[in-house]
């Protein structure tokens, strides 16, 4: 042993010396090596992606690869191969490492590659802010010599640059129709069209034409319809709907105030910065102003998983996943909508394209860590009363949580200890026919007279040798024994199912009334020959409380030792109408379930023992202490909830909220932030460090974290975020909105990806114009949206014709530079509103308030079913503008969906515009189109127009804003004369010219 021990020791010492030398020579891992790996390698070589099967996250993983890092032998290490050479393989698709960096790694490996076991590397790329949207908004002078309209100045410059010659102005009729739809979402009324065409067409000077144009713009902007149309743009972005989505898809009856708030904000031309702030932290920044709370409907507008929050709860992983999704949904909405930033991509790893790190993303989770979504009062209480109410709620919620915990503990223990016992009890009761709802047997319907022959018959399936037949009376173990057992009866057998021939009488008990057998079995001897059909015929029925009837618990046909029951699960028929249900069913006559209590005492003793054991355990778990505390809590809750009633208000909005009476497993935070951790790979089961509120440092001077101290207030974090968003030096927010305003007026945005200004998005077609408009919005003391809209639609660019030009198309086929106007299809809402308008049924003045249903709700208690096909399209309650419809998430309105309305599960910046056969079917056959065609036809008929020509002209004036052309006069006229006004109307509603705006 000696020499061996000595040599091991010697070897050990040698190794130790070598290691010490090596370590002292190697560059420091933490300060010199880790940053290189984290900045250059970890985005691919992390445990989740594991590209090339090589992971540099932990020491163990890195050394798991056999050749990559060979301590002490850098030149043998595959890693060095990969990062050196003329054209290094790594980092893939990026600049090679510097010589200095390569040297450091080389020395580190030669020095033994020390790497502390506990140090986990993380992808930590440098923030690259060199991207157009992150640079400060730039002031540019107007190009060229046009000063009348800045949009035209910038657009003309680009047209000139690309040798494009803009087409001329559109016809006045086209212009007024375009303007009316773009600003109000409705067709212009014919009189208005004529007034505009007369004035604009005959104007003496360009100046007076412009004045007429601007007067119409102002008229539309001042109308309440403007807000109704423009709110829809915003509601698409805000993923607004009035049900939760997900499982059960329950209603949000108080979501509509947010919709009205958006309409009101556009109509009042609310300063944009304020509009943003109200939707993130209005409750903190504008206390006492109802809009400050209603605006928070934005945060809550998206989908919400009722089951995850309400039924599962935060003490389970699934419930915590639901909370995580909830915060992710809010964070994404804020950054996609206000900042055109796809922050949600940094959930599992750093953003692949943009300088957004996981830490940034989880700091935003911290901002929303104390809010959930629920109904919230927005007026009726003073700020002091609100504080008092919240304090009361905190106390109530604490007690509710205690009750919940007590019950959960009791339930956990009870389930573990008694569920096996309970199941055995149930089994016994089921088999022995004494359960709560036992399968008793066969029972006939009720007869008026006792002496009505009634039979029940069993088909054994084939000819069978039967020794005995047992008739077992029905009994449920509680009420009367021998229920329904006949007073007089016969038992017969036959090989003829009709019992017309070869009938063998087995027992005749029909000569006098029999004693009721109670629970005793009646045995009938059979013996040879074999039989197939057995019939029991009652000749005098027993009278029960409901009347005369026959009932039997079980019929058995057994062999000589009663070992086999041939009747089990065979077919039962009867002359009586049968009852079918759980207790009484023909099948129950042969199901082998019947009362056996009187001859199987052992089982009943077991049953009693089991029940006693169950009661003993239950009493033990629900100890007197626990019961006493529960009573105490319940009593206290009752008192507090009574007090809460004095703080009620009916003005509720579904919004971000921290204070409400907890319900189910949906517990309010009462303003106490939930701890938020960075989640490795986005996995709740791999939490990293705890995060405090902050935002994205995407431009110089932008804050990364909001608070120095760990002790911060929920509302303050959102207020900081709102301030961050609306900072003057924020390069994104103002550009984002300017881009949307161009999109909503001119039909397409300057940046083709309005919710993403990052590297994966698109770049602006007119960058100077975008910045010009952004500055105009930001620096306007009113931050007026309307004034920018006015600027955009008063331009020549807006007024261009949509006519094709092949020379221009050869250069710019997509019309990116606006050499013409873009023809557009009516949106789904515009189509529906136009049907109602043209038919004369639209109730334009019924604005705001709770939404109308264009469906019928079935089964509202559990999971509501939204049945659109049951809705009556002539229901006047639904003849309101489409923006006031009740928006269902999981079962979207079929007609509007087919016409490409927005999906409220996600923020929709640009709607799809598809053309499909299903759309044709919808527009041609939908019940609403049919109903409105009829109404439109009636309208035309009621006007008592003098001729076919007059009818056709009136139809096109109302629907298309112009008199009919010669083709239409002829063809529509013929159709009208043959098929009537309603059929004419149906055709008009399907014309291309009704659906498209030139």
């Amino acid at each position: 042993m000696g020499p061996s021990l000595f040599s091991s020791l010697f070897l050990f010492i040698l190794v130790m010396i070598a290691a010490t030398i090596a370590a002292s020579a190697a560059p420091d891992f933490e300060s010199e090596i880790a940053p290189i790996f984290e900045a250059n390698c970890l985005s691919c070589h992390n445990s989740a992606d594991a590209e090339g099967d090589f992971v540099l996250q932990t020491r163990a993983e890195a050394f798991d690869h056999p050749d990559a890092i060979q301590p002490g032998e850098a030149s043998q290490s595959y890693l060095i191969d990969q990062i050196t050479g003329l054209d290094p393989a790594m980092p893939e698709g990026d600049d090679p490492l510097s010589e200095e960096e390569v040297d450091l790694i080389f020395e580190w490996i030669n020095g033994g590659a020390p790497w502390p076991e506990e140090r986990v590397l993380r992808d930590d790329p440098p923030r690259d802010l060199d991207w157009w949207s992150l640079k400060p908004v730039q002031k540019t002078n107007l190009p060229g010599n046009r000063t009348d309209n800045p949009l035209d100045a910038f657009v003309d410059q680009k047209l000139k640059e690309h040798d494009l010659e803009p087409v001329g102005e559109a016809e006045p009729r086209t212009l007024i129709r375009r303007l009316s739809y773009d600003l109000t979402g409705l067709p212009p009324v014919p009189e208005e069209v004529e007034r505009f065409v007369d004035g604009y067409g005959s104007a003496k000077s360009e100046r007076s034409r412009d004045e007429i144009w601007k007067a119409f713009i102002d008229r539309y902007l001042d109308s309440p319809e403007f807000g109704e149309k423009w709110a829809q743009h915003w509601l698409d972005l805000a993923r607004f709907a009035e049900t939760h989505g997900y499982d059960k898809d329950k209603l949000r009856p108080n979501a509509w105030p947010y919709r009205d708030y958006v309409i009101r904000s556009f109509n009042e031309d609310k300063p944009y910065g304020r509009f943003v702030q109200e939707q993130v932290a209005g409750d903190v920044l504008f206390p006492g102003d109802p809009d400050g709370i209603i605006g928070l409907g934005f945060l809550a507008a998206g989908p919400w998983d009722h089951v995850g929050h309400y039924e599962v709860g935060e003490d389970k992983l699934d419930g915590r996943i639901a909370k995580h999704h909830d915060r992710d949904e809010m964070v994404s909405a804020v950054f996609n909508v206000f900042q055109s930033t796809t922050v949600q991509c940094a959930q599992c790893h750093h953003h692949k394209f943009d300088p957004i790190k996981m830490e940034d993303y989880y700091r935003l989770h911290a901002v929303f860590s104390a809010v959930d979504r629920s109904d919230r009062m927005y007026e009726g209480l003073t700020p002091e009363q609100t504080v008092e109410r919240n304090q009361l709620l905190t106390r109530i919620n604490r007690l509710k949580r205690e009750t919940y915990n007590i019950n959960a503990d009791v339930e956990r223990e009870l389930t573990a200890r008694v569920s096996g016992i309970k199941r055995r009890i149930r089994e016994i009761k089921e088999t022995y026919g004494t359960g709560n709802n036992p399968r008793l047997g066969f029972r006939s319907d009720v007869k008026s007279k006792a002496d009505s022959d009634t039979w029940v018959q069993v088909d054994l399936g084939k000819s069978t040798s039967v020794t005995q037949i047992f008739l077992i009376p029905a009994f449920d173990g509680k009420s009367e024994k021998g229920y329904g057992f006949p007073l007089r009866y016969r038992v017969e057998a036959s090989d003829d199912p009709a019992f017309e021939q070869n009938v063998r009488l087995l027992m005749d008990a029909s000569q006098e009334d029999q004693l009721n057998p109670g629970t005793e079995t009646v045995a009938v001897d059979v013996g040879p020959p074999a039989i197939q059909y057995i019939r029991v015929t009652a000749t005098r029925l027993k009278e029960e409380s409901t009347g005369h009837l026959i009932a039997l618990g079980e019929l058995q046909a057994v062999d000589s030792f009663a070992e086999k029951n041939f009747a089990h699960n065979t077919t039962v028929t009867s002359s009586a109408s049968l009852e079918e249900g759980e207790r009484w069913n023909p099948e129950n006559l042969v199901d082998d379930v019947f009362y056996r209590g009187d001859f199987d005492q052992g089982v009943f003793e077991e049953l009693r023992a089991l029940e006693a054991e169950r009661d003993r355990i239950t009493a033990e778990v629900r100890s007197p202490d626990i019961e006493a505390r529960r009573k105490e809590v319940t009593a206290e809750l009752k008192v507090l909830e009574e007090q809460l009633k004095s703080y009620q208000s009916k003005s509720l909005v579904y919004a971000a909220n921290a204070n409400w009476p907890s319900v189910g497993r949906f517990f309010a935070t009462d303003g106490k932030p939930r701890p938020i951790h960075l989640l490795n790979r986005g996995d709740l089961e791999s939490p990293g460090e705890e995060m405090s509120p902050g935002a994205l440092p995407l431009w110089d001077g932008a804050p990364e974290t909001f608070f120095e101290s760990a002790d911060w207030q929920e509302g303050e974090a959102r207020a900081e975020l709102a301030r961050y968003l609306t900072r003057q030096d924020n390069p994104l927010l103002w550009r984002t909105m300017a881009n949307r305003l161009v999109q909503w007026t001119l039909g397409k945005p300057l940046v083709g990806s309005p919710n993403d200004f990052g590297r994966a998005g698109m770049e602006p077609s007119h960058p100077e114009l975008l910045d010009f408009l952004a500055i105009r919005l930001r620096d306007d003391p009113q931050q007026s949206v309307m004034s920018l809209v006015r600027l955009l639609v008063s331009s020549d660019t807006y007024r261009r014709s949509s006519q094709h030009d092949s020379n221009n198309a050869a250069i710019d086929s997509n019309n990116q530079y606006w050499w013409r106007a873009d023809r557009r299809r009516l949106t789904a809402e515009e189509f529906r509103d136009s049907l109602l308008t043209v038919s004369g049924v639209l109730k334009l003045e019924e604005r705001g308030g709770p939404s109308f249903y264009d469906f019928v709700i079935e089964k509202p208690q559990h999971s509501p079913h939204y049945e659109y096909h049951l809705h009556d399209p002539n229901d006047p309650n639904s003849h309101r503008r489409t923006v006031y419809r009740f928006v269902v998430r999981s079962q979207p309105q079929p007609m509007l969906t087919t016409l490409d309305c927005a999906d409220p599960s996600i923020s929709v910046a640009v709607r799809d515009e598809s053309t499909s056969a299903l759309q044709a079917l919808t527009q041609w056959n939908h019940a609403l189109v049919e109903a409105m065609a009829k109404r439109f036809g009636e309208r035309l008929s009621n006007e008592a127009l003098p001729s076919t020509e007059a009818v056709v002209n009136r139809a096109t004036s109302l629907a298309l804003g112009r008199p009919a052309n010669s083709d239409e006069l002829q063809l529509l006229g013929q159709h009208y004369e043959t098929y009537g006004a309603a059929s004419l109307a149906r055709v008009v509603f399907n014309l291309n010219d009704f659906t498209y705006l030139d």
Partner: protein
Amino acid sequence: MNRRSFIGTMGSMALGSMFFRDGLLGSPGVVQPLHHKPKAKRVIQLFMAGATSHVDTFDYKPLLGQRDGESWDPGEAVELFQSRPGATFASPWNFNPYGQSGKMLSDIVAPLGEVVDDMSFIHNLVGKTGVHSQATLLQTTGFNFAGFPSAGSWVSYALGSENDDLPTFVVLPDHRGFASNGAKNWGTGFLPAQHQGTLIRPGNPTPITDLHPPKSSFITPESDQAGLNLLNRLNSIHAAEREGDNRLSARVRAYELAGAMQLSASDALDVSQEPQYIQDMYGLAPEGPGVNDSVLNTKAETEFFGRKCLVARRLLERGVRFVQIWSGNDNGFPRRNWDSHENLKRDHEPLALGMAHGTAALIKDLKQRGMLEDTIILWTTEFGRMPCSQGSAGRDHNPFVFTNWISGGGFKPGTYGESDEWGYKPQDRSNYTSVYDIHATILHQLGIDHEKLTVRNNSIDRRLTDVHGHLLSDMI
């Protein structure tokens, strides 16, 4: 006018982009040519809403019988969705071997015994959560929250249509209502709208919404046809006057296709054209869709599911690419779905027997027509159910392991991947199957590389398989 002549008349216009925008039926897919030679052309997804218990159907666990009623201890902490773990709960049904393979099936799926040698079982599938809505979306869209295209939409988008007059992606819902998430399970997300699943309700008086005019005081067959002819003329004139805008002529074409669809859809749904023995094989009830289902019962479930399977076969024959068939509606009461928290026997038995009857008929029928080899049938559900009891007669959710099976489409029959002895978690916990693997392999059989079928949305190149998915190469 068929599609070829339509293309011809459109001359030299930018065809690719036009079809992209058009969203017409009959448009080709974006994956052209296919990434590799395909083994299959079409897919049927059978979805058991509410979560079928694997241990009571396809995944035989004798240990549950041996330990029945004893307290259940898998040797680790267990967190259940609704309840606390109860005692070990033996399956209420017997299992017997079937086919050459001797695969054990329970009595409630015994009708599938006849075709069991054409089925490939995966018993080690693992889900993400035990919440129905999320788990359903994960199966249908590959993501456990809303906003993503359904697998059927991806297939429609990738492969396009094989016919001119029917949708590419058809959904046959449970007639009693939708499963959780409703239409989100067949929505297109960010793909063009024509790839959404089209709802067809076999047996319903109006099986396809708006296919025909509603009951009307003024619409007659004559006025209807005259109106369509008139529209064709006026809209063609309108389009001709506006050069350079394909959408306008596409809209004219859309109305023509709508007319064609009226004819072919009605024809596809008319199962009375099928010989009696075929109707019997699918288990159609003599009284038809009006069969009494006041109490959940096997006869009615067989009729409902069998009719959908038969209609699905007729749709596939006419070139539909992807059919989703649903069994079970949302989580209402009384139960009409597989979510057997309270009473496994009462609910699973009729639903499973009905499903198994129709599905066995579908497999046999496709096989006898030579269609099984290029048709993939995927049977799935949200998750499995626990080996222990909930209450005394139900089972709670088990997202930790459950079963899928596939038939046809070049999948090799057999069993791939096992669950542990309880049916609680995968046998090999570091080596399990995910929905991404299933989706990747199905796309592969269709000739599509799941990593190459991408669409950029919100900065991310989105895939059906997110950033996951490995081919199940043993199975193909």
